[in-house]
């Protein structure tokens, strides 16, 4: 049995108290689905955990004007099951239902997933394709500026995510080709069509979520799978590992993106 080294643990009940503790050096704990595992392996070794699980302001889903707002501590199952999400952005509810397995979805949160920015995680693709805004306790960050490659984000020391604001697209879809052992995305593509633009985001490529601008241009002219069938993906920008070469990943991007467009067409 792996043991967890000793640490201090706080469970504040207001956002203000949490921010104070985290600015003083505490590490936010959300669902713990990544952080506790990392601590078991000593990949992370915070001396104080600040559990965000008892702060009501950080949980919940609501429609606000033409945006969908999801609190940072909302778990994947709540998003998957929410009628508000299913009506506003059904592709987002479907994405949440594809994360890991149902036990992971009971605990894992949107804030934890976004802050972690795993290069094969699902939510980052949705945030980038939908042009979401990440609200922290002190500022708002556009998804385009937030994700900065492998496990790195625009978050500063002591900064916590409070909610994600999603513009509601005309139509959207997410298709994921899972890596069957980890359940993360080998490639996942989120396509969103707005009145004036189309955005395409790819996760699983290896060095972090990215927008596929060539596909966006083609789909803006003609929103159909055929329009992107011959749009190339830069093979060199993708990585190779035991699950697939970069050429294989590039091929998957094309196939999965076409399926996502077909899915969005309904």
């Amino acid at each position, binding site marked *: *049995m*792996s*043991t*967890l*080294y*000793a*640490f*201090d*643990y706080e*469970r504040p009940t207001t956002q203000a108290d949490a921010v104070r503790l985290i600015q003083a050096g505490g590490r936010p*704990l959300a*669902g*713990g*689905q990544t952080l*506790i*595992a990392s601590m*078991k392996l000593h990949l992370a070794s915070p001396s104080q*955990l600040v*559990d965000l*699980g*008892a702060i009501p302001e950080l949980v919940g889903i609501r429609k606000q004007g033409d945006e969908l707002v999801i609190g940072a501590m909302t778990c994947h*199952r709540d998003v998957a*099951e929410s009628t508000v999400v299913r009506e506003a952005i059904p592709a987002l509810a479907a994405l949440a239902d594809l994360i*890991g*397995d*149902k*036990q*992971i979805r*009971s*605990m894992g949160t949107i804030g934890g997933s976004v802050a972690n920015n795993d290069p094969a995680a699902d939510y980052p693709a949705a945030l980038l394709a939908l042009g979401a805004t990440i609200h922290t306790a002190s500022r708002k960050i556009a998804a385009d500026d937030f994700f900065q490659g492998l496990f790195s984000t625009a978050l500063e020391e002591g900064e916590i995510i409070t909610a994600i604001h999603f513009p509601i697209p005309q139509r959207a879809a997410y298709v994921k080709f899972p890596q069957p052992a980890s*359940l993360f995305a080998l490639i996942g593509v989120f396509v969103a069509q707005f009145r004036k633009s189309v955005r395409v985001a790819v996760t699983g490529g290896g060095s972090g979520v990215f927008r596929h601008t060539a596909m966006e241009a083609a789909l803006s002219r003609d929103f159909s799978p055929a329009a992107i069938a011959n749009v190339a993906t830069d093979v060199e920008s993708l990585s190779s590992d035991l699950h697939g070469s970069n050429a294989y990943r590039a091929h998957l991007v094309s196939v999965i993106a076409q399926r996502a467009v077909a899915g969005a067409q309904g």
Partner: protein
Amino acid sequence: MKLEITVNGRAVSADVPPNTLLSAFIRDHLRLTGTHRGCDTSQCGACTVIANGRSMKSCSVVVGQMQGAAITTIEGLAGKDGELHPMQAAFKECHGLQCGFCTPGMIMSSVDLLTHHPHATKAEICELLEGNICRCTGYENIVKAVQTAQKKMSA
């Protein structure tokens, strides 16, 4: 730290170090050893319990995260007179286990599955059991057990 938690309907208050995993608290502190520790890395699902109505892997959280929660472990499923829960009975009837190591987690996961998806198809059952690994059965009889319990529980 002071922990207040409800386990199998019984209020428990305990003084435990914050680095206690929920699985360790259940097994080593409460001596409820039906919850198994397999991988200890969130992969196998043997440690699955139900917390506030949803299955989760008890090796993946620290006890503080469960402050005030209601937990059900495999020991909490049978009736007071020892009568098996329909899911337990179905696993027995369908030979849904061989060595039995994965079984407590499999059963807790399956109870959550039918609670939230009472009309799950065979394909959906397979998908929803993705978080539980069995090295013995090949899964066929596990899926049959869930389908059998599904019929009994909806009857």
